[in-house]
């Protein structure tokens, strides 16, 4: 048995080659905030094509939710790493050499690099105005706060938490800070762009082909039909390869050069392109003596960096998932998406929900401790059940939160003793609203599936083929899924939010119906998922269905050095129905391991706004040798249930489980990652003088 991944036959976006192709390199601002006074390109050899702000001034601003990005910085660089110029040369070596011959005269300007400082009135403004995008990625109403760095504010207003606190027996109010993180997809960002007869073609690693198409069309003033996006498989993405990344620069260079241009980032640039939102989350929860949660007041401040990207959406989710899967009658949430002069932050596995879940789950254990109630018991008393109404006013169904929680607790022998053990429970939304389409073409016994689902290691093409084969009643070997090419596949919102298996299963149902209803040669299926929230009250339908999961861990600490050793880690995720078992297991395992990294190791370090650990030795992801001795998980299924995506679910509860386990060892954590130094400091605070 063989597979292209084992034989070296796999090809990724970075392997794309076209005849006559040039190689791009980007010149980036070293300053967090600076005026670009002049750029001297006189020494760049004629064999190279050089692009500066002058060349792209005629191009449109873009951005999936707020249109605050230009192809290159025009007048000011807004973060250390902001692209200021770009070179295309016949070889990468020449491009590197030419880059050193471009001289930029900068005038440094005041920079704001902390989210709590940036949100203050009077802080230097990163952008003067916020122009809201009008495209499908801006699928909710934005609330930029004029005269501030807040580019979106999401609120939930339900009941009266302050009144509830007044009547509560106990109120806990704690604040937590989570660091930024890097996706570290092993394959870097890579895009090849070519213009031919007024048509722009881009071969790129992206999860969002149709968004990239519509934004590129906008940037270059052409019709969407004049832009073709082809999505080769990605060597990982985890949210990093979303929306326009390198494509606009590659296309602008290709336009000027009259030749195809390939842009690939080096590892240090990956830390200056798109990261995960650092956040400060304050959670105030009140309860009665018997453990009933009566009110929650939550504030989230998310640092979106110098460009909003999908920050507003991330913050909306951070906010609407913040209360968690609990019956709380009075909930107010304020989630602000705040600009800073740091690299942009955007989609990252978990999509904002790790940050707020961490804070809330730790507060629940503080409550449990003060009330003298077991943390599992406290949660079970309040956990959402079918028919309950959530903080958004929507009625929830298919609730398996209690089951996930109890499964996780069982896995670490919760009742045998609690010391060193902790757990966390997640309620996560799926992109709502959205739209998915699929076309099935029959060629004799063979079927071709065309859809916009992009492959980044989650195994989606295999899963979609399995779903199609099931519905067509044929063997898997008779079904083939095509590489997404926006010229030949129908629309799909994007491959994010763990939505794809679910929506494509429904779109395929529709396509097979259509196929059989017609001449049997072609079927076109469409599914539209409706919903959405009022950004000022949080009322509406946040998620068509919810992703549900729990994690539990047992750990010990070296009390003399603060090193944390996770002994066992278990995730219980609700899958509804598993389609491709091996793939589902890999997604759970991978999410848990990424969660471990977020919990213990991963943090982007800055000095004067510059990333100081932009390499894989100074920024560390978990290795084989970091795995807990026991890493296990389960996929909970229920007959007749909907398929639930699993791409992210097992990640967010892991840092919460670890934080809560440490609490039982008298280590109170208020930050992620939980470094050995933090643990040692916390332990030493416990020692009486």
């Amino acid at each position, binding site marked *: 048995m063989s597979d292209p991944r084992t034989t070296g036959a796999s090809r990724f976006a970075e392997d794309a080659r076209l005849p006559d192709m040039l190689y791009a390199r980007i010149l980036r601002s070293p300053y967090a905030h600076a005026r670009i006074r002049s750029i001297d390109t006189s020494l760049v050899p004629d064999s190279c094509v050089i692009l500066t702000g002058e060349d792209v001034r005629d191009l449109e601003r873009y951005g999936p939710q707020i249109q605050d990005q230009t192809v290159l910085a025009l007048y000011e660089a807004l973060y250390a790493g902001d692209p200021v110029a770009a070179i295309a040369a016949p070889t990468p070596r*020449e491009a*590197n050499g030419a880059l050193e011959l471009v001289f930029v005269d900068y005038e440094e300007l005041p920079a704001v690099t902390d989210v709590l400082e940036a949100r203050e009135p009077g802080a230097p403004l990163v952008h003067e105005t916020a122009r809201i995008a009008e495209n499908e990625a801006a699928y909710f109403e934005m609330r930029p706060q004029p005269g501030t760095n807040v580019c979106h504010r999401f609120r939930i207003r339900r009941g009266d938490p302050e009144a509830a606190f007044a009547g509560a027996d106990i109120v806990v109010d704690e604040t937590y800070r989570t660091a930024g993180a890097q996706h570290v997809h092993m394959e870097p960002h890579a895009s090849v762009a070519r213009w031919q007869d007024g048509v722009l073609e881009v071969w790129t690693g992206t999860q969002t082909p149709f968004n990239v198409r519509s934004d590129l069309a906008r940037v270059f003033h052409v019709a969407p039909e004049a832009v073709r996006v082809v999505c080769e498989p990605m060597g990982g993405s985890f949210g990093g390869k979303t929306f326009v990344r390198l494509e606009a620069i590659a296309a602008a260079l290709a336009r000027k050069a009259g030749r195809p241009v390939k842009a690939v980032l080096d590892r240090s640039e990956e830390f200056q392109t798109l990261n995960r939102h650092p956040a400060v989350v304050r959670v105030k929860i009140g309860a009665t003596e018997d453990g009933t949660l009566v009110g929650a007041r939550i504030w989230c401040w998310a640092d979106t960096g110098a460009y909003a990207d999908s920050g507003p959406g991330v913050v909306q989710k951070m906010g609407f998932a913040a209360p968690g899967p609990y019956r709380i009658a009075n909930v107010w949430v304020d989630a602000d998406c705040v600009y800073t002069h740091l690299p942009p932050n955007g989609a990252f596995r978990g999509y904002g929900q790790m940050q707020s879940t961490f804070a809330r789950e730790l507060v629940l254990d503080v409550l449990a401790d003060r009330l003298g109630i077991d943390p599992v018991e406290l949660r079970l008393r309040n956990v959402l059940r079918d028919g309950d109404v959530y903080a958004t006013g929507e009625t929830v169904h298919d609730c398996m939160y209690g089951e996930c929680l109890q499964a996780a607790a069982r896995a670490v022998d919760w009742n045998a003793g609690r010391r060193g053990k902790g757990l966390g429970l997640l309620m996560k939304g799926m992109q709502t609203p959205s739209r998915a389409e699929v076309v099935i073409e029959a060629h004799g016994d063979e079927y071709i599936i065309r859809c916009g689902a992009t492959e980044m290691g989650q195994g989606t093409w295999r899963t979609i083929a399995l779903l199609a084969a099931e519905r067509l009643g044929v063997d898997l070997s008779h079904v083939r899924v095509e590489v997404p090419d926006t010229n030949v596949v129908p629309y799909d919102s994007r491959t994010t939010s763990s939505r794809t298996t679910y929506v494509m299963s429904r779109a395929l149902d529709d396509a097979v119906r259509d196929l059989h209803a017609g001449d049997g040669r072609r079927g076109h299926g469409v599914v539209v998922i409706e919903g959405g929230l009022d950004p000022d009250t949080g009322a509406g339908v946040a998620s068509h269905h919810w992703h549900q999961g729990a994690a539990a861990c047992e750990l010990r600490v070296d009390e003399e050095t603060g090193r944390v050793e996770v002994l066992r880690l278990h995730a219980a995720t609700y899958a509804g129905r598993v389609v491709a078992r091996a793939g589902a297991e890999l997604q759970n395992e991978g999410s848990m391991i990424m969660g471990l990294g977020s919990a*213990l190791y991963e943090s982007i370090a800055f000095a004067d706004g510059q990333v*100081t650990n932009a390499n894989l030795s100074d920024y*560390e992801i978990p290795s084989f040798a*970091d795995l807990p001795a026991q890493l296990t998980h389960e996929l909970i299924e229920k007959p007749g249930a909907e398929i639930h995506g699993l791409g992210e679910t097992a990640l967010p509860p892991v840092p919460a489980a670890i934080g809560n386990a440490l609490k039982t060892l008298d280590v109170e954590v208020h930050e992620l990652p939980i470094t*050995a130094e933090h643990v*040692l400091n916390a332990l030493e605070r416990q020692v009486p003088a």
Partner: protein
Amino acid sequence: MSAAPPEWLTPSSLDEALRLRAERGDDATVLAGGTFVAILMNQGLLTPAAFLALRDVPGLDTIAIDDGELRLGALVTHRAVELSRVVRENVPALALTFSVVASPRVRNQATVGGVLADADYASDPPAMLTALGSRAVARSVRGQRDIALEELIVGHYTTSLEPDELLTEVRVPLGEHRAAYRKFRSRSHEDRPCVGVAACRRPHELRVAVGAVAERPQWFPELCEGEPAEIGRAYAAAIDPLDDIRGSSDYRRRVIAVEVRRALEEIAA
């Protein structure tokens, strides 16, 4: 912007290598395994005019026992030290130290001479070699000289080697001893050391060397007396550790006290 590739000099004898070294000095970057130089080149931090590649120089890649000493040639790889029966039987702590460096890939390529000449502070072997009382042998057209390990590394990425010298071997005294190396990582198992403690007790001498906390391994002969905990505290007070991504100065100081004590407990008589 120079497009011409650097000269690739491959002397086939030590004499020829020393002659080229004397002629070119630091204009020709010495290549043993080349891992460190490759990293600098991949990051665009080094554009040498020439390479002085030692791969064809015979006699630099042997491990032998000679006259009461273990001799490690400068081109001996980390992996060879790790797996060598001679090293494991005679100085097991040294085999262990080389075995915990980086990954098997790096250990297959990086050399004994290279790790010392690079003088990277976040490194394991220098501390252990210092605690073992080793010396480096430097040769030049002018002759040969021995450099005690504690005098070899003088600063960040800086050794006391002259521009015309090549490090050709390291000599480790044998004889009865108990030694330990503790590599303290503050993050992933794959991390470089936050604190590295090497301890070696011989019949008449105890040496403790702490690496990865300052620009050079820290050895205080006058503090190597007393109970393990006392020595640990004394070392922590005597060292002014640096701050880096793996730990703050203050954190390192606390870990030094603990890990020195633990290393000494491992080799307690």
